[in-house]
């Protein structure tokens, strides 16, 4: 009799599935009722969890009530507060790779402790206890740091600044900000605006201030002058850049600065910086 997949012991089928991916294992549960338990086995989902998970979870006070590795995986796909709520950790559902969101408190924002420039407050739409709002400043410098040992190896990550623009904002769009991602091995710069493109405003500008935008863009480094994109939860994300995580452990700095415009700006609310795998990968 020819050997078939269904004739293999459940352990072997689970070993096979542990070499696929979380979506593949989830789809496999629908193949047949008798093979479903092989797809739900701990052998499969343990392999999808990061190997250094205990180390990361030791930095969290959250009690995870789970009865299987599969439940643990899906619970971790929702954000878990780490380091006393300073950072938030989750797993990417499709690949099982580690994702982080650094809260505003975890970032280095110049003059963030000066109430004349920045104010800290609670925000009901944020996952963190505090967000920081820009009152008024001329030079804005925001920096976040992350260690590659907290991330998954052999993965390209993208970093995003999560912001909202308040109704009484001003000066945020005059000149693009410069972004920088740097580590010991690489350094990538780009430029980005803080507000989405406003068609009406652009038309008005082109009538009266034809050269101004181009003049301002010339002041900053060469870049794509990106725009933020809207997220489902009401916040916007501004791409800071991408970086590749190899085998070595190193620190990565993510910077967003606006120091070349010299004009005052205000009304920017920052939730934090999100670091997640670039979406094309599986």
């Amino acid at each position: 009799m020819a050997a078939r997949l269904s004739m293999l012991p459940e352990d072997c089928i689970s070993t096979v599935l542990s070499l696929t991916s979380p979506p593949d294992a989830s789809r496999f549960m629908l193949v047949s009722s008798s093979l479903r338990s092989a797809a739900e086995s701990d052998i499969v989902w343990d392999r999808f969890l990061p190997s250094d998970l205990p180390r990361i979870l030791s930095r969290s006070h959250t009690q995870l009530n789970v009865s299987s590795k599969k439940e643990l995986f899906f619970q971790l796909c929702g954000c878990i507060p780490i380091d006393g709520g300073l950072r938030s950790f989750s797993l990417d559902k499709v690949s099982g790779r580690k994702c982080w969101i650094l809260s505003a408190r975890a970032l280095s924002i110049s003059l963030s402790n000066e109430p004349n420039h920045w104010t800290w407050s609670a925000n009901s739409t944020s996952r963190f206890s505090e967000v920081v709002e820009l009152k008024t400043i001329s030079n804005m410098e925001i920096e976040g740091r992350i260690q590659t040992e907290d991330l998954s190896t052999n993965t390209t990550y993208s970093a995003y600044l999560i912001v909202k623009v308040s109704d009484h904002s001003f000066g945020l769009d005059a000149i693009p900000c410069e972004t920088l991602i740097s580590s010991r091995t690489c350094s990538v710069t780009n430029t980005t605006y803080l507000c989405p493109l406003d068609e009406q405003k652009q038309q008005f500008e082109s009538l009266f201030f034809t050269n101004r935008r181009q003049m301002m863009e010339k002041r900053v480094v060469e870049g794509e002058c990106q725009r933020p994109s809207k997220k489902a939860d009401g916040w916007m994300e501004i791409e800071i850049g991408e970086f590749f995580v190899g085998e070595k452990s190193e620190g990565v700095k993510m910077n967003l600065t606006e120091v070349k415009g010299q004009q005052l700006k205000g009304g920017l609310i920052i939730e934090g910086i999100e670091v997640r795998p670039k979406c094309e990968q599986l």
Partner: protein
Amino acid sequence: MLKNLNSKHIQRFSYKYLPQFPISPNSPKLGFSRSQIANYRSNFPTTIMSSSKTIVLRSSDGETFEVDEAVAVESQTIKHMIEDGCADTSIPLPNVTSKILSKVIEYCKKHVETPNADEKVAEEDLKSFDADFVKVDQSTLFDLILAANYLNIKSLLDLTCQTVADMIKGKTPEEIRKTFNIKNDFTPEEEEEVRRENAWAFE
């Protein structure tokens, strides 16, 4: 110089540096004949040659295979049997047919023969051997998984399981059923419930 060599050196390099023991590259067994060993031992009494034994494996259909011990102990199951002293005459493997056993032995031989896995050429050669090794029909592939599982040969189990995993990746449940000839034995209610639980995987 010879006094500083230990038994490991002798096993590895002896057929390079001691031309009185010519080994043809086409010889089917790795090992020395008993008279060669006796001669060797009389010339170098301080060195010890231990792993020159051959092990006899008996498949489920009665065929016997004589393999070098170094090749046979790629299987942890066989290794434990030898250590427990159950391998004096031959080792019966009632779960493995001769067709599959000969393939498993071919795999183990190749992996034992390639000691320097760091050398790029040897690594590429092994990779291409492994890729060709699993180009077999589904039935043989599953038999290899069963054999690797029973004989506890981790690298073979990983290789064969990865091959099947690659056949599953990216497929819908219907496509998987078709590829592996699996019957859908869900009741409609059960199927609806499982689909709802895993809806995210279908987006």
